């Protein structure tokens, strides 16, 4: 791909993200997924674990933020193509010179960025309601982890969205995929507490490496080597996800043009 194209696509993806944020602003389901549900989870976790002290409060803040991120990715990004189809805008988007995956990339960017609100709201909740003094141990590494996590989540979302269209059977399990990832990715407690046989499953989930990097940089439980390893794993998974996504999008669009399903749900 030429550099000029990359710049054009990046600029387009930013506009898509901005317009998506404006469009979704009034959607009550989105407010629930990124604000209400993570706050409920944060309140429950903070009450249950209040005796463990301030260090754990930071873990809960980051963890409940990650729940918002995953729910947003699973439901909003996962349904993004179907939503366009329901609105009747899918045909208008497919017959454009911009590759369709660039449009979905921009939409995922909006979803992931807006779900960072859930982390901020949990932070405010823990500080004001529970009175914890929350201290970020490695703020610079945390910001780096957030940026790489955003990229990893977006890339993972690019696999989920066409997968839900091509294999509709998988989408029926969408609700069932929400909480197991909270647990297997170690959002709210370390995966060391889970049976050993679940560990390999955690290792192949990009959200696990995001959770690890964010927890370790915010609570100071990991050394730099461990954090960089988590970053590397996220980048590796992102490259794999982007490759798989490019194939899935190509197949999905070709199949939709053969089966005439761009307009019909």
């Amino acid at each position: 791909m030429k550099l000029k194209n990359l710049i054009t696509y990046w600029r387009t993806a930013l506009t898509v993200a901005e317009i998506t944020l404006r469009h979704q602003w009034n959607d009550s389901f989105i407010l629930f997924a990124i604000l209400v549900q993570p706050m409920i989870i944060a309140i429950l976790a903070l009450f249950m674990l209040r005796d463990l002290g301030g260090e754990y409060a930071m873990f809960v803040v980051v963890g409940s933020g990650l729940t918002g991120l995953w729910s947003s990715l699973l439901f909003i990004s996962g349904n993004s193509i179907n939503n366009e189809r329901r609105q009747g805008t899918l045909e208008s988007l497919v017959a454009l010179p911009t590759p369709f995956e660039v449009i979905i990339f921009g939409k995922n960017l909006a979803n992931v960025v807006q779900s960072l609100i859930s982390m901020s709201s949990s932070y405010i909740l823990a500080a004001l309601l529970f009175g914890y003094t929350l201290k970020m141990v490695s703020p610079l590494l945390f910001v780096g982890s957030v940026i790489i996590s955003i990229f990893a989540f977006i890339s993972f979302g690019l696999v989920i969205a066409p997968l839900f269209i091509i294999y509709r059977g998988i989408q029926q399990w969408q609700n069932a995929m929400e909480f197991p990832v909270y647990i297997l990715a170690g959002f709210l407690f370390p995966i060391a507490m889970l049976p050993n046989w679940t560990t390999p499953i955690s290792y192949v989930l990009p959200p696990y490496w995001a959770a690890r990097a964010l927890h370790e940089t915010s609570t100071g439980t990991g050394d730099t080597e461990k954090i960089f390893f988590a970053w590397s794993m996220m980048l590796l998974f992102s490259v794999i996800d982007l490759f798989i996504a490019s194939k899935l999008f190509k197949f999905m669009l070709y199949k939709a043009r053969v089966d005439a399903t761009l307009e019909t749900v």
Partner: protein
Amino acid sequence: MNIIEVQNLKRVYRATNGVIRRTTKEIVAVDDLSFDIKEGELFGLLGPNGAGKTTSVKVLATLLIPDAGQVRVKGLDIVKDANEVRKEIGFIFGGERGLYWRLSGNDNLRYFASLYHVAPEISKKRIPYLLELVGLKGRGDERVQGYSRGMKQRLHVARTLLHDPDILFLDEPTIGLDPVGAREFRDVIRNLQSEKKTILLTTHYMFEADSLSDRVAVIDKGLIVALDTPSALKKHVRDLSVVEIETFGIAPNVVEEIRKLPFVDSLSTREQDHRQILHVQTERGAEAVPDLMASLEGMRVGRVTVREPTLEDAYVRLVGGKA
């Protein structure tokens, strides 16, 4: 110079039913369709529902892959060079869908301008120009959900002109518009014609095709039954007159009996406010009226008129009186 070339286009829809014994039903939407469109020409595509008009437009707009045949837009193959074709075309499908209703008209246009890779400095000037062109000046900041159907249709036109394409596909663009809205829309199309855009227009409204098109193709069951200028098509029915009879509650079997009369060339009916208007094409003109009235004996009959044929009558004759 031909800018669009369609050769032996075939497109089949397949519907699969059943779980254990799966059966696939095939519906041929377009069967061996061939036509060319010249640069700067407005080409009308007419046909009854299910004739294959929208399918043809969707194939041209790269939204459907043909089963057979070759389609070229500006010399580019619509399957192999789909992305290049998309830069050259704009399209509108009839109806209100295809816009983001919770966004303003301006934001819709800004969004699509970005997707068409129109540079921000150009779109800043082009969006107000297009809103003015389609009669939406001063309404760009309002949310689309508050627009009337006609305004949404006009916003569609603005959207499709953002990247200034040379070729436009307009699929029943005036469907559902009130008469004033439809007339304004036709003025927009005339403006585009004057800008030398190549336009493929599908419509149900014969006067629309008659007044706008340079050439018209009539398709039925996925095949072209006639292709010529509107005036040449009207010559198909030059020898005929049209008797219009207003009836109230006419039974379908009576219509079929009239259709079988030896002097009836073709017959179509139109429902209008509890009335059925019979359009009978016949060489006998006014002389046919007594025999037709005899067939309607005992039925309530209103106004009877005899007139010269129009493009619509040519169309009815070509598609066998199914309109």
